[in-house]
């Protein structure tokens, strides 16, 4: 058989029906849903008199609108409450397993899938959420879908899909100190632009990617969609297998060995061909900070806010001009001189245990700047929260003046009461800095957890490489 990429192997293994000139029908192994995008899918299903085909392959969780303050209080937001109740009802009626807001396994959908071992190498995984690309870190084909497609998967456990092109994104060499997975992916997006990956599935490779933990690989894959790609993937290896073993939904004993044997067949063949290749050299990378209103508007922390006039493409110039007005930034301002109102450490990009450990190490024994209105740490899941507390990280954060919260999407999207007010500026470890994303009129700068932590201490951005207690792990 011809040499194949990881993507092609998974694709081929899931073809249910293929006809020339038509999209392919592929089988879906795992389907994740949350309260935000699923109610209309269930009501559509019901209206058509259809059933959920394989309820045991769909997992539901409440994450977007949950309070991160106190779960025991009644939900006051009537619309959010309606969504929670609908999800509960829909799951009860159809037999879909739900991690509700009081479950000890509750968390952001893209955090709990991997953490519980629901996500596994070689699978096709979908969710009505664009950051489903996160799960590709395990060598799965995982992508976001719309609500009509959620309904389609519920009814048929399949999706009709057109095959994507493949791009090998190679990060060659070792990651310098202070440079995290977040900085790598921001650099990739800065390079190709937010539409650069349109029509592609990325496969990340190279020494710097191989050297990342599963957490770091998830951070990279998470933001594939911000580069326009349908999905991002990393070939499974020993790091992956070690992460998988012992997780609740992962097979055990002999069956685990069988699974590992299969997973080992997944990495791209040596002579497999990609439609495109992008190579970055890790030694050129630095901590990154976004200055504009999409993740591609990004620069190194030691840089300055660019002058729109420096863009050769008139469309880019226009977009940059508009972005600087929205962000209230002047061209030429040093990134380190940008001061902040709030700091948010959380979201499906950067709220895993390793992220929190790295941030805690930066803030230990220090205190957030007086000028800051708020510094939030929101663990991605209750499992992360419990593990962090077992290590005493919560105490480190609280002593440093951070608020320590319960798990959820929180200020990444501001669908609960954690929001940025109009005109306020945040350093955020999340993935989107669109206008109004964290609150109408709010201004978001995307950074890594260690960069956010240091910015909270100083009240403005700082180059984390100058702080000697940082190893840049994750």
């Amino acid at each position, binding site marked *: 058989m011809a040499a194949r990429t990881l993507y092609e192997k998974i694709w081929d293994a899931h073809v*249910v029906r293929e006809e020339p000139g*038509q*999209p392919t*029908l592929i*089988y879906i*192994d795992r389907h994740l849903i949350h309260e*935000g995008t699923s*109610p*209309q899918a269930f009501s559509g299903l019901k209206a058509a008199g259809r059933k959920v*085909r394989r309820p*045991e*392959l769909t997992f539901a969780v409440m994450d977007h609108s949950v309070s991160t303050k106190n779960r025991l209080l009644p939900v006051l937001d009537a*619309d959010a409450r309606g*969504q929670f109740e*609908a999800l509960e009802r829909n799951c009860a009626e159809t037999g879909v397993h739900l991690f509700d807001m009081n479950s000890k*396994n509750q968390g952001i959908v893209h955090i709990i899938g991997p953490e*519980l071992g629901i996500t596994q*190498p*070689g699978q096709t995984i979908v969710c*009505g*959420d*664009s950051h489903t690309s996160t799960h590709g870190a395990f060598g799965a084909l995982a992508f*976001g*879908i*719309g*609500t*009509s497609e959620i*309904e*389609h998967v519920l*009814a048929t*456990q*399949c999706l*009709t899909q*057109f095959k994507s092109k493949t791009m090998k994104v190679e990060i060659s060499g070792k990651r310098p100190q202070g440079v995290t997975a977040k900085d790598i992916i921001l650099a990739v997006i800065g390079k190709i632009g*937010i*539409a650069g990956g*349109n029509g592609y599935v990325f496969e990340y490779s190279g020494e710097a990617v191989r050297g990342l*933990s599963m*957490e770091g690989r998830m951070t990279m894959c998470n933001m594939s969609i911000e580069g*326009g790609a349908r999905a991002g993937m990393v070939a499974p290896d020993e790091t992956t297998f070690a*992460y998988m073993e*012992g*997780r*609740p939904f992962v*097979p055990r004993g002999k*069956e685990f060995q069988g*699974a590992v044997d*299969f997973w080992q067949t997944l990495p791209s063949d040596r002579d497999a061909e990609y439609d495109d290749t992008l190579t970055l050299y890790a030694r050129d990378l630095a901590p990154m900070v976004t200055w504009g209103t*999409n993740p591609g508007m990004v620069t190194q922390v030691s840089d300055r806010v660019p002058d729109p006039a420096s863009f050769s493409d008139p*469309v880019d110039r*226009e*977009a940059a001009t508009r972005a600087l007005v929205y962000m209230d930034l002047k061209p030429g301002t040093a990134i380190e001189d940008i001061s902040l109102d709030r700091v948010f450490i959380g979201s499906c990009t950067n709220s895993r*245990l390793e992220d929190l450990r790295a941030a805690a190490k930066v803030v230990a024994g220090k205190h957030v700047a007086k000028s800051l209105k708020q510094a939030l740490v929101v663990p991605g899941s209750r499992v992360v929260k419990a593990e962090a507390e077992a290590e005493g990280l919560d105490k480190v954060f609280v002593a440093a003046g951070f608020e320590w919260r319960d798990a959820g999407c929180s200020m990444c*999207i501001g*669908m609960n009461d954690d929001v940025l007010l109009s005109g306020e500026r945040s350093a955020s470890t999340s993935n*989107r800095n*669109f*206008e*109004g994303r964290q609150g*109408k009129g709010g201004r978001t700068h995307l950074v890594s957890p260690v960069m956010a932590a240091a910015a909270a201490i100083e009240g403005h951005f700082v180059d984390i490489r100058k702080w000697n207690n940082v190893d840049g792990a994750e």
Partner: protein
Amino acid sequence: MEPFIKHTGLVAPLDRVNVDTDQMVPKQFLKLQTRQGYGRVLFYDWRYLPGEKPNPEFILNAPRYKSASVILARANFGCGSSREHAPWAILDYGFRAILAPSYADIFYNNCFKNGILPVTLSNEQIDELFARTERKEGYRVTVDLEQQVVTDDQGLRYSFEVDPFRRDCLLKGLDDIGLTLVHEPRISAFEAKNLKHPAMYEAVDVKHHSDSPQSARHN
């Protein structure tokens, strides 16, 4: 889904690149449980001043674009979140077709599921359409899916490509799920064949695992 065969309508120009779905339907409107009624909130933060007063600066509020039904847009339209609320809002507002040089992947898909035709034209063609829209108040185009052309009454005629399968579904207003269910025997055969595949298709023992004391370990 309502079929799309041919549509003639007033063109509204939205001269920005990378319009994301967060702008189309901001998060505070993602908590509703219907597919209808989102037209009122389309482009909410751009469209309204405090108190939901129309913002005169926003193009859709200009009287000359009232009752527009074709959006003329720039590159990478619909990027960001997968929310299908975005096409629901576009449709509910009264738009049936979009003309742009490129679209984000998920949004493009979602349009076809809702009877909206996203037409892809070259940058030069889009520039020309912006010029014509600006020049002539009441500028209208006809988007013909059967012939795969965009035309106006001044002799403009741009043909466009669209995947034949998607075209067919839209022309007939076909229900995707119904189409797939025709292949039920194949799906069952696939499941039977892969039942024992390691870690892939075997039913997950949810009851046994659910919320049991979690065993996710530290690394």
